[in-house]
């Protein structure tokens, strides 16, 4: 779907501009979302969001319970439980911290509790590295989570609001993870527009868990032990919620544009120079920066190339991507992750997109790039190399192998 463009830019909904890192922008969004409970446990590179939130609370700008947990597992459990008593709750983590709390993350999804977590993407250990890799956030992809990537601090701020709204919608009730690239986005400082509290209130209704809310006036038990009698039906419910989420997401963007002005044309991904393109790359996160510059340079040389910046990974926009990517001769999928031992040894994003394109009668040539792992820079020149693989393929010179690793020492 395409969201209508006729809504006009609205100045009155923006209160002020501030210079903020990606993490700090998310903190301000959490403040604006008037979150009730925050649970913190530090790990780079997401930590600054918690630093900033504790400051906002100390300065009286936000009234919330702020708990410091003894580990990520406890941290995520606190967030989950807070959500079950009807509190809007926020947590977050990075890399191995995210994995350490995995048990809590899985049950948050099966208990259908609409919490929000920031994942500052970080390579999984070993070796201990601080740089971005997407395997951490992607680990919840199969469990019933909403999962999206932001590419700028402004987008991240806005997506805290959008994701709370979608997650808490009665038709959805799923936990949400907002991912952003460690260092490149978590730590860069940008001028960010902060919306007014009033406008946010207009967009984001109060959290209401309804009859499932744990409260002395509403005595219920959540998630008792059941076995084969119940599980498959519960899974089917989870799937249904994810299916409904797609419509709710589209509604949320329409409403967001109506309140804040025309911010998003397409909720799922943003296309750049794709109208007449033969070859596109598609990826998640900040790799869009060098990739789009590579597009500009190649366009100057007359090459018909474009970039698709994917925003939503769960729920996966299958039909939308089929409609979009089916138009091109060659599609290069950039993975800042790796799926060891998987089909043709590709990346996770590649597998999802390749499988999504399979039903098309006329499929584009698909190739996969593994790059930027562990925070390695992806340069403009390397992106041009990627486009050249696609341009060769479009001209009939197809590489034997699906996957090309770029930017490693070889």
């Amino acid at each position, binding site marked *: 779907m395409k969201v209508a463009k006729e809504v006009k830019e609205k100045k009155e909904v923006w209160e002020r501009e501030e*210079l903020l890192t990606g993490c700090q922008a998310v903190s301000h969004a959490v403040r604006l979302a008037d979150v009730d409970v925050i649970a913190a446990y530090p790990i*780079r*590179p997401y930590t*600054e969001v918690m630093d900033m939130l504790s400051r906002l609370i100390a300065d009286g700008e936000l009234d919330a319970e702020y708990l410091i947990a003894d580990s990520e597992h406890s941290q995520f459990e606190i967030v989950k439980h807070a959500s079950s008593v009807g509190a809007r709750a926020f947590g977050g983590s990075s890399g191995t911290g995210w994995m350490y709390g995995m048990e809590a993350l899985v049950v948050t999804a099966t208990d259908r509790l609409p919490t929000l977590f920031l994942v500052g993407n970080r390579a999984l250990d*070993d*070796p201990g590295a*601080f*740089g971005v890799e997407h395997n951490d956030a992607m680990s919840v992809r199969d469990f019933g989570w909403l999962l999206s990537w932001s590419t*700028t601090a402004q987008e991240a701020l806005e997506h805290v609001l959008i994701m709370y709204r979608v997650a808490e919608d009665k038709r959805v009730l799923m936990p949400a993870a907002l991912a952003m*690239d460690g*260092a*490149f986005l978590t*730590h*860069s*400082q*940008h*001028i960010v527009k902060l919306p007014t509290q009033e406008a946010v209130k207009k967009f984001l209704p109060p959290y209401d868990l309804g009859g499932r809310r744990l409260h002395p006036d509403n005595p219920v038990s959540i998630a008792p032990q059941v076995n084969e009698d119940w599980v498959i039906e519960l899974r089917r419910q989870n799937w249904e919620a994810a299916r409904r989420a797609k419509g709710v997401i589209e509604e949320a963007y329409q409403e967001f544009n109506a309140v804040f002005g025309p911010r998003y044309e397409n909720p799922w991904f943003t296309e750049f120079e794709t109208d007449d393109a033969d070859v596109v790359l598609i990826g998640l996160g*900040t*790799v*869009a*920066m*060098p990739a*789009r*510059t590579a597009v*500009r340079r190649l366009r100057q040389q007359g090459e018909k190339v474009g970039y698709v910046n994917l925003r939503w990974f769960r729920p996966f926009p299958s039909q939308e991507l089929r409609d979009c990517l089916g138009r091109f001769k060659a599609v290069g999928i950039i993975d800042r992750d790796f799926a060891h031992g998987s089909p043709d040894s590709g990346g996770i994003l590649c597998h999802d997109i390749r499988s999504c394109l399979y039903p098309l009668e006329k499929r584009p040539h698909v190739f996969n790039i593994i790059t930027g792992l562990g*925070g390695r*820079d*992806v*340069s*403009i020149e390397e992106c041009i190399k990627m486009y050249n693989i696609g341009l060769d393929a479009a001209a009939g010179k197809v590489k034997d192998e699906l996957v090309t690793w770029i930017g*490693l*020492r*070889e």
Partner: protein
Amino acid sequence: MIKRLEINYRGIFQKNLGKYIGSDIVLIASSEGKVAFSNGRYSDAPERNGIPCKYFAFVSPDLSEEELEAECGAKMDIDEADVSVVLDDSMSKGVEPWGWHGIRPINEKVREKGCMLVVSERKHAELVKFFAKKPYDYRLATLKGAASLAGLWVFKDDLTRERVLGAIAAVDPGIISIEAVEKYLLKKTGDQKRAKAAREAYDATLRNIERVTPKDGIDWPHKIPVLPKWHEFQEGGVVVPAVKRGFKMGPRGQNRNEMFKRGTSKTERPVVRFDLCIKCTLCWLDCPDECFDPTDDGLYDIHYEFCTGCHKCAQVCPVPECIVMVDEMKFDNEKSPWEMHAKDPKAYVKWAEDKKGKERVFYPQVTGTGREIREGETVPAKVAK
């Protein structure tokens, strides 16, 4: 067009200073209608006391924010700098930010006609003698002052921040103009003295810019390691072979890891008066980096290449004036002090006292008040006449 600026700072001690200057540049450039953003390399990540770190600011008068970010945003380091700010002049001797990076010249990134801007009390020649030779001309400016050092949770508000902004405007008005700096500081703080400090630094720096030519500097003595290709190193994760066991008495007697010397973290090094030493072993025992080598005569030599200047030995030494921390820029080699002492004890005492000078500098980092200078005591030599 893009202007790239790097801020070289001392990890932890100048973390807030570095970040604030980066933020200020973005806000000032934006107030002039330019597009700007700032990020850091190793900032907040593997940052340790004194380790050389960098912040960056990128400014463009004509690119969109998205284009500027695309060019500069997703990188850990820059290829070249229009201005390379150095907040502590002892980094002039080279910077080794992380294991396997090697000791790199401080002027590695400065481009042709670009400018090194160093906070320093020293004459230009005293800095340039440590710089690597470049194949082209660039500029060097100094901003008079001592390095402003504070702590992780504190910021030392001593006007260094404002003065550096003024000096940046002097060396490259294309990044920020002095008028915009003044306006920004006044608007932000309402404090006339901050704008004045920036303006004075601007005026002083304008008079203090010199050309550096390809003849100036040294042939860089340190090897920059070439990292192995993926198939060239052992499988099973990064496995660092232990330093080969080995010990003998005397200077350089212990085997050490040559891959990461860590010595460029220091702003000061310990100078030992061997003649006052009571052989209590505390410096050797407490040194976190095992820089001390026992010698046959019961003393402890120091391997300065591995010393991070942490002050621990000077703090634990029970003898007044026996171990004193001295400004790193007063030294131009890493030679064994014990060997100098063994060769001529009297000359060594003279050398040591000469390096120590009259002032003893203290850094109460917890309070963030920065440098405190007290008068030192001269203890007569206890060497055979």
